[in-house]
């Protein structure tokens, strides 16, 4: 009940003209970047970070959250119209969605996606409203050992999201390593500054994020084809038969997506895949899947939107991001001087509730944008990438320079951009590196405070039950792939 009261005050904040504008801008940009291959929500947030200097943290997080869930809607457009998913989480939508477009039913596919996404996004935001506060309250008793264990879990969980756990862990450790550059806040010792004064303050999160998600994405995508044919969009409102076939997949997709989104180490991509598999399993005629079954569009689309809101639960309540984009939003919170974690609901309640309220509003805006305006957005897909990437690079330079008025940061941007390009090329995830950089100082402080409390004994991490449970979950995340590998080898031998 108290959550609903807090949500009411959140709506009062979210409905101010400036926050409404930021919400609209967020979902609009999210819709755009979700639709345009070659730039994702993580890159868009990285690029817009410098532009939010001077605004208050609440408006900035409303903008970033809007980009995050708006991109889930936008990714659908390219999946259905050109069979090129704008986002990884829209891959499953393209299987049947594109087939529907080829049969002249692109409008129905886009319409049911928009309605399903709205229902799922709103229901999952309600789940976030009800689940996150008690989770945060339960975590309020966290001391330094629990924070230490949370950071370890967060880094490991994000490392486990991508393809290779080893690469993810290595990237996370690289981020922690970069966080040690500059003056040690506790001892005052200068570390890894190489005699350069500009490194004494450390390497800024914004430089690393813009390089790894902005420049690297441009370098990876600048070879893309210039122009694609776009299917015409008509009759967006689904027929009664479409609706009858889609309503249960939307409900199932919502439940699956929210649950998977809440769990660390998962995300919208896995959620949409599971929803598709479930729909195929429960279908009376599974052979229709792959040749234009509307259930194959409705389920995954509802699921990836519910997962996006679900991923905000651990991010807001515990400070553990469930995806690369939420890792960057977490970094933005830190940039604004806000400590992520269970205390967020206590110390920054107005921010949290205003952001949650804005998510309800954003979902309504997205529904309005996607039903009557889907055809207009489809036209935007005709803009070739070669027109887009030069200004993106220019924005990267201006943004990074502006955070410290430093040309050295621009050089760092170029160097890290090349590193990010190589990481993409060889399938090293960049998000754990950014998260390691963001959480590095919290990790080091909580380790020192924990060992100070225990007079130097590491047993404090296993004798405190919550810390022990979090570390056991972390160990399970690391050991699961090894156990699965051994089991599959045994099966192969047998």
């Amino acid at each position, binding site marked *: 009940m108290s959550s609903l009261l807090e949500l009411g005050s959140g709506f009062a904040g979210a409905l101010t003209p400036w926050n409404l504008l930021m919400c609209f801008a967020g979902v609009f940009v999210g819709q755009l970047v979700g639709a345009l291959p070659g730039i994702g929500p993580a890159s868009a947030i990285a690029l817009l970070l410098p532009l939010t200097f001077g605004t208050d943290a609440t408006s900035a997080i409303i903008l970033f959250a809007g980009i995050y869930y708006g991109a889930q809607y936008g990714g659908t457009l390219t999946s259905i119209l050109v069979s090129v998913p704008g986002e990884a989480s829209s891959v499953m939508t393209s299987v049947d969605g594109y087939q529907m477009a080829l049969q002249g039913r692109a409008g129905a596919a886009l319409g049911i996606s928009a309605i399903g996404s709205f229902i799922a996004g709103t229901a999952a935001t309600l789940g976030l409203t009800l689940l996150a506060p008690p989770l945060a309250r339960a975590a309020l008793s966290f001391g330094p050992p629990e924070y230490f264990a949370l950071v370890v879990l967060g880094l490991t969980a994000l490392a486990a999201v991508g393809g290779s756990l080893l690469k993810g862990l*290595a990237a996370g*450790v690289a981020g922690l390593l970069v966080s*040690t550059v500059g003056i040690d806040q506790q001892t005052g*010792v200068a570390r890894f500054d190489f005699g350069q004064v500009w490194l004494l303050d450390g390497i800024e999160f914004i430089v690393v994020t813009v390089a790894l998600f902005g420049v690297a994405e441009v370098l990876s995508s600048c070879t893309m084809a210039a122009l694609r044919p776009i299917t015409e969009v008509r009759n967006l409102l689904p027929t009664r038969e479409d609706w009858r076939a889609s309503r249960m997949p939307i409900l199932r997709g919502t439940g699956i997506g929210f649950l998977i989104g809440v769990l660390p180490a998962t995300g919208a991509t896995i959620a949409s895949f599971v929803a598709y598999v479930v729909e195929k399993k429960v279908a009376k005629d599974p052979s229709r899947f792959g040749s234009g079954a509307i259930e194959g569009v409705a389920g995954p689309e509802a699921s990836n939107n519910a997962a996006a809101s679900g991923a905000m639960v651990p991010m807001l309540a515990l400070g553990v991001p469930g995806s690369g984009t939420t890792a960057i939003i977490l970094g933005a919170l830190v940039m604004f001087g806000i400590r992520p974690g269970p205390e967020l609901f206590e110390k920054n309640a107005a921010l949290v509730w205003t952001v949650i309220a804005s998510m309800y509003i954003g979902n309504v805006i997205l529904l309005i944008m996607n039903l009557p305006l889907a055809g207009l957005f489809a036209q935007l897909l005709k803009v070739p990438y070669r027109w887009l990437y030069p200004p993106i690079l220019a924005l990267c*330079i*201006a943004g990074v*320079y502006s955070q410290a*008025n430093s040309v050295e940061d621009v050089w760092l941007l170029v160097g890290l951009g090349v590193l990010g390009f190589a990481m993409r090329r060889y399938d090293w995830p960049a998000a754990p590196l950014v998260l390691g950089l963001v959480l590095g100082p919290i990790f080091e402080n909580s380790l020192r405070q924990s060992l100070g409390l225990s007079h130097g004994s590491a047993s404090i991490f296993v004798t405190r039950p919550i810390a022990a449970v979090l570390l056991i979950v972390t160990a399970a995340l690391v050991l699961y792939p090894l156990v699965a*590998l051994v089991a599959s080898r045994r099966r192969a031998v047998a």
Partner: protein
Amino acid sequence: MPYRPSVGEVLLAAAFGGTGLFWVLTAAPMPLWDGFAPGSGFLPLVYGALLALLSAGVILVPVLTGRGEAPLAGEPVRKPLVVTGALVAAAAALEPLGFVAAVFALLLFLYAVVERLPVVVATAVSAATAGALYVIFRTWLGVPLPAGPWGF
């Protein structure tokens, strides 16, 4: 067929691993323990050692288990290299030429030379973009962007 990592993959892992080893060597002389808690050198040393081990694992584990993914089909790198070169030139030109001229030159090069768009169109779009960024960052956000000999 046994898995063989590509040269680029090995080089990237070696770069991470080398950085880890450098961190270990640099952190070793720092105070490692201070009373009950780690000193300034402890975590950098641990991070460096872990990064070196994990980077080695990235290459060795798929080779030893034979379960690596096939190397990429070798997407072209010429264009990304050219774009990187343009970025390096723009970064070098920021202070002597100023933000507007450096960014205008970067955009013009990318549009007119790399993407082969008509020179008039490329010039107009580059000028408009550089001008818009100047207005946003210098006028709106008050960022003291590097000024060239022309004062902007």
